């Protein structure tokens, strides 16, 4: 009993640390002001762009990330620890540094642009690339842990029943890992939405929500940055509650 009280106290401190700033910010914005902000064209556009760009990056990560996660969970190979470390790097480094590193590959001076003549800087693609880089570890690690939890004998059983390895993967491993794939995707999408550092370097425009908040704060001060911040928090919060409910239903 005493232990539970002590733990509740410590837990409460943490929750307050998160909740108080959010709460103060939310009550600082008048509902009328919030409503006005919600119909501003550039605000709506930036929020939609953010949600969309992060969705593209998550879908792209699913396409390559699930196979990679499966390999990491099932196969032991030389250099595996290095690969796993590499995947975690985007989480560790400052995201502005990630943005700079990405410029080397996708910037105006890059081989890519020189060869193709295409510059992606300042496009929605660039935003997705920035988001992808910094948020992909959440997806890959979550899916990897999910596959690790599945006894490989399920796949062996499927193969012994005549399934090809591909069929065993799609009919057994994949559906059994569904929960971690969904939760990894939610995490990655969420992390993408909140990304600022890498995005601002690759694409100041078109303007994402995080960049718009930064811009309004820079130009007009906290009072003008708050409404859009609150709006973004409310929208994200509602979406994630819905997604978590859907996830639990699975």
């Amino acid at each position, binding site marked *: 009993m005493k232990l539970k009280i002590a733990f509740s106290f410590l837990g409460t401190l943490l929750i307050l640390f998160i909740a108080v700033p959010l709460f103060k910010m939310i009550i600082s914005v008048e509902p009328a002001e919030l409503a006005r902000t919600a119909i501003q064209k550039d605000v709506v556009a930036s929020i939609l762009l953010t949600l969309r760009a992060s969705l593209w990056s998550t879908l792209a990560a699913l396409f390559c990330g699930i196979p990679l996660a499966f390999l990491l969970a099932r196969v032991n190979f030389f250099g595996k620890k290095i690969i796993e470390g590499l995947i975690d790097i985007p989480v560790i480094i400052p995201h502005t540094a990630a943005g700079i590193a990405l410029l080397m590959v996708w910037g105006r001076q890059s081989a890519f642009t020189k060869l193709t003549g295409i510059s992606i800087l300042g496009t929605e693609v660039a935003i997705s690339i920035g988001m992808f880089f910094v948020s992909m570890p959440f997806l890959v690690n979550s899916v990897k842990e999910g596959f690790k939890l599945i006894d490989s004998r399920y796949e*062996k059983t*499927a193969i*012994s029943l*005549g*399934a090809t390895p591909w069929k065993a993967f799609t009919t057994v491993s994949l559906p*059994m890992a*569904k929960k971690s794939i969904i939760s990894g995707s939610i995490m990655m999408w969420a992390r993408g939405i909140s990304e600022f550092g890498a995005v601002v370097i690759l694409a100041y425009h078109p303007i994402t929500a995080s960049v718009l908040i930064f811009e309004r704060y820079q130009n007009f001060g906290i009072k003008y940055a708050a409404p859009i911040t609150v709006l973004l928090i409310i929208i994200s919060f509602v979406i994630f509650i819905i997604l978590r409910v859907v996830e639990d239903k699975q």
Partner: protein
Amino acid sequence: MIKIENVQKKYEGFEIQNIHLEIKKGEYFVILGPSGAGKTLILEMIAGLVKPDLGKISGIKGSRIGLIYQDYMLFPHMNVFQNIAYGLRRKKEKKEKVESAVQKAAQQLGIFHLLHRNVNKLSGGEKQRVAIGRAMVMKPDIYLLDEPTAALDLSTKIQAQRLFMSLHKEGQATVIHVTHDFEEALALGDRIALLFNGQIIQKDKPEEVFNNPATKEAADFLGYKNVFSGEIRESLMHIHGIEITTPVNKASPAYIAIRSNDIILSKKKIFSSARNYFIGEIIKVINRGSHLEVLVDIGILLHVDITHQSYREMGIGIGNQVWATFKTSAIKVFEH
């Protein structure tokens, strides 16, 4: 015939060495050994799921294999019907054919009423039947059973053993059954191979293996409770002040093993052809269900199995003095 020649494999901490086995078509072959001996790995190699590092497994090509793992590995995201239908659907069988095959198997296994249930909510025995059904509908030539009864209670286990016998007979399938339960091995196997630490130490008919274990470890594992070590000179082993007459003239160091139902208890000394008779005190009586296990201290502790009836009729109990008699030929000797 399935031929396993000189197979070696290192895998996740296990090492399997030098496995030679020839399993005849239609044989019920049991691989018996403690957990961690590498039994599952052998089955997975026979099934072609794991490649041996060295050696060769032949006689499998073109055979249909029914692999059943200890914890059944039912696909948790599919119901009973979908689990059983899994293999047939991979073969792209017609819908009606799949349905009738699944229903027939379910009927035979007594799980027809469970077909639309969630597999996670079944009992152990039911889960196992589903696993058997899933393998059975593929009409395997070879069943590979990996500790299939280890997680079942006694009555379900006996039912399952009957089921394996009938699968074997009806389908004329070869069965390779892996277990750590020597009673199960004795009950089911046409032949038994003993696997210890990744090596086959003995393979023979069940009675042969049971009556003549090849090593001390095998004797321990086969339920020999009286295993003693010492030195044998002029046919005698001296241990703790007593002399046991053994069938071997000289062995040093050596183990001897005596089965607990090869020892006779009596209230008076029996004059017989048996060379070993000792007086001792009963210090414990353990009820083993079908019989009693009596522990007699004759200088060393002897485990003796007797029936409830003889225990009653002899009128003996803890603290009584009794004679323990056994023949020299009942002693198995193993050199270190």
